[in-house]
């Protein structure tokens, strides 16, 4: 098995909501004030330690946001087990675009797909109150549609690894146990996330 414990995830959302910034913060822990716009798509990976004996490599496809590039998106979300749909809390239009993406993903990839919804630029709500989208309403919408919802700030790093981690955990729960990166023969193939069993060899199985 050449690629144990990995899943494909796609970032979608209107342009300039901060998809690439979230990706960069997640994969490298960095933030750039004036990053270039994404043309086409970009690819990043990051390995997450789900629990003591499970690592999951996230293969992250970062897409271009403009409507014109919409036709490229299926190439990337096709076959993805997870998605993170991003909107900008200071831009109400970006939320309706995000809802469209959720709908498209559900019809294309079905209910099995784990979808996260990130309301990005949360820092702008506290420093200067530019908030245009009410978090409670979105939370309700997210509940109705089985989305993992959080408000994030790629700039400050708030909730970024959290939302990716939550998505990854749900993916791990759905994936059959044999594909997760378990230390060989350590446990009988029980359910993923065997809590309390994690005393041994947590460092030896972390991947390069």
């Amino acid at each position, binding site marked *: 098995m050449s690629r144990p414990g990995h899943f494909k995830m796609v970032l979608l959302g209107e342009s300039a909501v901060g998809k690439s910034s979230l990706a960069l913060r997640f994969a490298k822990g960095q933030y750039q004030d004036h*990053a270039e716009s994404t*043309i086409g798509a970009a*690819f990043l*990976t990051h390995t997450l330690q789900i629990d003591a004996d499970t690592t999951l490599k996230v293969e992250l496809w970062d897409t271009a946001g403009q409507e014109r590039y919409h036709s490229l998106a299926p*190439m990337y979300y096709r076959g993805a087990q997870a998605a993170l749909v991003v909107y900008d809390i200071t831009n109400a239009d970006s939320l309706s675009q995000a809802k469209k993406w959720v709908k498209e993903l559900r019809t294309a990839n079905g209910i099995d797909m784990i979808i996260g919804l990130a309301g990005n630029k949360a820092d702008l709500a506290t420093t200067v109150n530019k908030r245009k989208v009410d978090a409670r309403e979105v939370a309700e919408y997210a509940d109705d549609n089985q989305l993992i919802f959080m408000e994030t700030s790629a700039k400050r790093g708030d909730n970024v690894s959290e939302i990716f981690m939550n998505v990854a955990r749900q993916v791990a729960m759905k994936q059959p146990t044999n594909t997760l990166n378990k230390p060989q023969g350590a446990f009988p193939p029980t359910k993923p996330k065997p809590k309390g069993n994690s005393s041994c060899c947590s460092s030896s199985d972390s991947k390069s």
Partner: protein
Amino acid sequence: MTIVDTLETSKNDLFLTLEGENFQQWKDSMSMETRIPGGLSVEKRQKLWISLATKYIHDIHLDWQKTCDFAFNADTYPEDEQLNIQIVKDLHRTGCNWSSNEYNRTLLQRVLLAFARYNKTIGYCQGLHILASVILDVVNMNEEYSLMILIYLIDCILPDFFSNNLHALAIDMTVFGQWLKIYNPQLHLHLQTLQSSSSSSAAASSSCNDDSDENYEPPLLNVFTIQWFLTLFATCLPRPATLRVWDVLMIEGSEVLFRTGLLLWSKLGVAVSKVSTADQFYSAMGHLSVQLLDEKILDADNLIKGLYNFGPFPTPMLSELRQKFTFQQTLENIKVNQSIGQTNTSRSKTKDIKRSKTKFIDDDVINFISCFAILSPSSLRNNRFEPISPKASSPDINQLRQQYKKLKQRNQQVQIITQCSNEQRQPTSESVCSISGGPLINHLLVKPVGVKRNQMKKHVSMKSSSKEETEDIQQEFEQLLTCLKLEKPSIPQNETTSNTLIDQLVKSRSSQAPKYSSFNPFPSRSFNENVAANGYKLGLYSPVVTSR
């Protein structure tokens, strides 16, 4: 501004050189100069770009002053609002240092808005901001020259990349895959192995999932090549190298993209051939991209040398491949839509029993994906579009009918014109010939896209043979239509019909199609010259040619 002075002085000899053979000579000499180590000087580059653009504006009879007045008008038009929203988002994301300056950003915004007003079919597309910022940099932030060069670059050099949901880009990606297969078969094979092995390993690991989609891995080449082509290498090469590639691009046309892409991949191929999974490929590419930007992998002199060592421009094979895939794609679309219609009806009963997993993708998406599907034919077999709403199959046939109707109308026009010119054979026919023939020869040599746009014109000017040609096309269309209505032959049969159709069409077309054009079975797109001559106010790029 100094640039205005330098250009004013050179303007007189510029217009001398614009005429006829002189222009070609001048261009040849410029193309020689681009190959000198170090490339063109800053002033020479300015002059080259502006001259080529001026020549183009001159050729399409565009009233430049009026265009500028309109495009840079400070008044806002109702459609500007949406454009501005989109443009403003990208102003500070050009990757250029100068875009941190407020004044410069305003200039960039004005140029982008002006272009969007000028070319309404494209409007604003992400990626244009990067091109415009490079151009502004070269012409010392002169907005009029920037607009002019941007128009030349987008309308004349690039084959419709930014319009129509990136349709032409999809075709060129497929064509590029074929190029790589021909010129660097090992790398092509290696990349394909990586793609299919990662797909199959994904399939094995997700065995519980009955969805064939799980096997999917996007073509490895595309992810990077799409960006390279859309930004004309501005985001992957160091700036001096980018500018030198652009010099050649402006002189020789869009084939430069293919040659540059091929050279880059061949250089990267050494490292890429060592990786054994798609995953490693992407992480290796991450490092390689950084090195590429630092000119560690490829230096500009060698790159330009490589471009020309490839052989004389243009390579005929490129236009052949473009024709082939443009047409094949049209057929694929029809087939995809048909199969959607079929599977939908046959499955509608069992659909509820199966998981209620309906897939809806709009027509454009299908169009686009199906071109990529040529690269990975398995995707069609996987039937990943099914089931889809029943409407999907009908618009395509209707569309085809409409296009057929249009073509018929145009045929009638052609016949009338042919008759007229035959009746008054001597003086009129000559003038018709010289008017449409003159610029056309230039198009063949200079302007790949222009030729495509004028394909119908060419039929007009070809007089005696045009009748036969148009009849041929008409026949081809009738065959297409009947093949559509006469559903349902079995799949292999369907394939042979379409294959012979492709062969027939490609054969009949390649004998007459001008070099470098791409075959457009529905020649209804931008008749730039007419539109420009009639003035932008009549609606630029109006696809309705019948009003002529």
